[in-house]
């Protein structure tokens, strides 16, 4: 089985949960920016939670599925059509052999995910199929997909599907993925304080057009770190909020470098990384300061909800 890329969209990549264990060599995490949505997509089609799927940014591709299969579309709400029928997200969809899936604009949010039964089977590179665009690793030759690419998927599938069928059961991603605008991100303190009287949480911020998988630039009042002396680079993480000398904060994403030299003024908690991934130019966001016990509780609650979804779908699909 394979997927043929008839048109590529704005930036469509193969992603899984990311490349772990090589950060000491300067290798970014990469992987799905909104790993929650990819995970739920995998559960909907009956895959292992860590299977690879497609990440779509802003404008989707047109895909042709060579054999019959089951897919799910999660993440940002996106215009999706097959055989002239509009397709809803967050549910399993059976496709007959040769089906063409046309994905248009992301309507709310920035990144949608297409999961396919058995997962996308591009080769593992350093233990992951994730595309690291900056490092040129994984996915299809380390790059975004192009028209004419053929993506291998699991060969074992022998699904008796003769017509398009959208399953009625669906997953509600709230509250873990809330595509409301304005959105809010919960933050923990960074190692650098701002000058007296300034706070990230005091203002609304607007997402700059310069944003990608590496980072999201923010527009708002100019901030200043209390300590501006030159410093040597230190480790950073996805979710780390850096403050360059121009005073405009940058939230690092999954393709961010492993080390950085700017002051770290805060960190977005990992339960809110899915929301972070869905920000697009012009979106408004606010920060809410939390403590470590609140961050831990938020993470545990999200994990518990995923577990419940997994259990419910296992019963429903019967596998």
């Amino acid at each position, binding site marked *: 089985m394979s997927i043929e890329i008839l048109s590529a969209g704005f930036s469509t990549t193969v992603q899984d949960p990311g490349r*772990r*264990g*090589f*950060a*000491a*060599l*300067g*290798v970014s995490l990469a992987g799905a920016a909104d790993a929650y949505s990819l995970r739920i997509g995998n559960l909907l089609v009956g895959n292992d939670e860590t299977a690879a799927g497609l990440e779509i940014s802003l404008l989707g591709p047109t895909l042709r599925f060579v054999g019959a299969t089951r897919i799910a579309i999660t993440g940002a709400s996106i215009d999706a059509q097959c055989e002239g029928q509009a397709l809803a997200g967050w549910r399993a969809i059976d496709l007959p052999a040769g089906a063409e899936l046309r994905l248009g604009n992301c309507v709310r949010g920035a990144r949608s995910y297409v999961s396919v039964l058995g997962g996308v089977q591009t080769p593992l*590179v*350093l233990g992951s199929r994730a595309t*690291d665009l*900056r*490092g*040129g*690793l994984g996915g299809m030759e380390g790059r975004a997909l192009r028209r004419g690419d053929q993506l291998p998927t699991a060969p074992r599938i022998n699904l008796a599907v003769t017509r398009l069928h959208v399953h009625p059961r669906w997953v509600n991603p709230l509250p873990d993925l809330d595509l409301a605008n304005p959105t809010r991100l919960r933050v*923990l303190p960074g*190692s650098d304080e701002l000058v007296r009287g300034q706070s990230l949480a005091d203002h609304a911020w607007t997402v700059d057009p310069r944003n990608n998988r590496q980072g999201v630039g923010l527009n708002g009042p100019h901030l200043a770190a209390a300590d501006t002396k030159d410093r*040597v*680079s*230190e*480790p*950073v*993480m996805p*979710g*780390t909020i850096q403050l360059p000398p121009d005073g405009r904060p940058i939230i690092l994403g999954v393709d961010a*470098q*492993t*080390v950085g030299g700017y002051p*770290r003024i805060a*960190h*977005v*908690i*990992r339960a809110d990384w899915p929301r972070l991934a869905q920000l697009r130019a012009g979106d408004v966001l606010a920060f809410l300061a939390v403590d*470590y016990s609140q*961050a*831990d509780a938020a*993470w*545990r609650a999200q*994990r518990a909800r995923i577990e419940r979804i997994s259990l419910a779908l296992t019963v429903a699909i019967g596998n």
Partner: protein
Amino acid sequence: MPETTPAISRLGDSALLLHWSIGALDVRNAQVHRVAAALQQVRPAWLQDLVPAYASLALIIDSAFDAVTLDTAEQWLMDNLPAALAAQHTNRNQRLIEIPVCYEPPFAPDLSDIASACGMPIEEVITRHCTPIYRVAMLGFAPGFPYLMGLDPALAMARLPTPRTRVAAGSVGIGGNQTGIYPCLSAGGWRLLGRTPLTLFDPLRDPPSLLLAGDELRFLAVDRACFDAPSI
């Protein structure tokens, strides 16, 4: 040499950070590598990454391990740090790796600018660049990119005001008081003075990176014929 105790802090809710603030940077960096090597020996399954930097070391927790919280990870670190600080040697033998570099056109677009800014002949820039034994302080920026300590201060050069959009793989550059090698085609603002034919990062190799943090390194000037020879 007595070890100074690093401060423990947190990088958000999925990593811890050790930070050394006292002493010369090269001494602190050596401590980072000793502690990283010692912790590596007792590394639990939940410890996804140990990331050394100049004077700090991140410990990233694998989010798949539900039972491990920042508190339990920090307790593990406090339990294991004293022995790691007491470790006198890394288990890995100190490596000295020679990197052949061709300092000729077209690989050295900024070499004459460096020479005139430093007020010395091009040959002296090359000699001064090849003389020190450098230390790989850390890998970062791109997979396998070594940040090297030990540059002759006379060669320190400000970065380009506007970074190049395309710097070829193997390019050797100077940025501030650091020198480094671009492992893959990328954008970059360092001043370029040569190129190595070696492949710094290959995901199919084990380990994928030619250089590891803590390695020692020396540049060896080679001519174009040597650069082009298939044996290197």
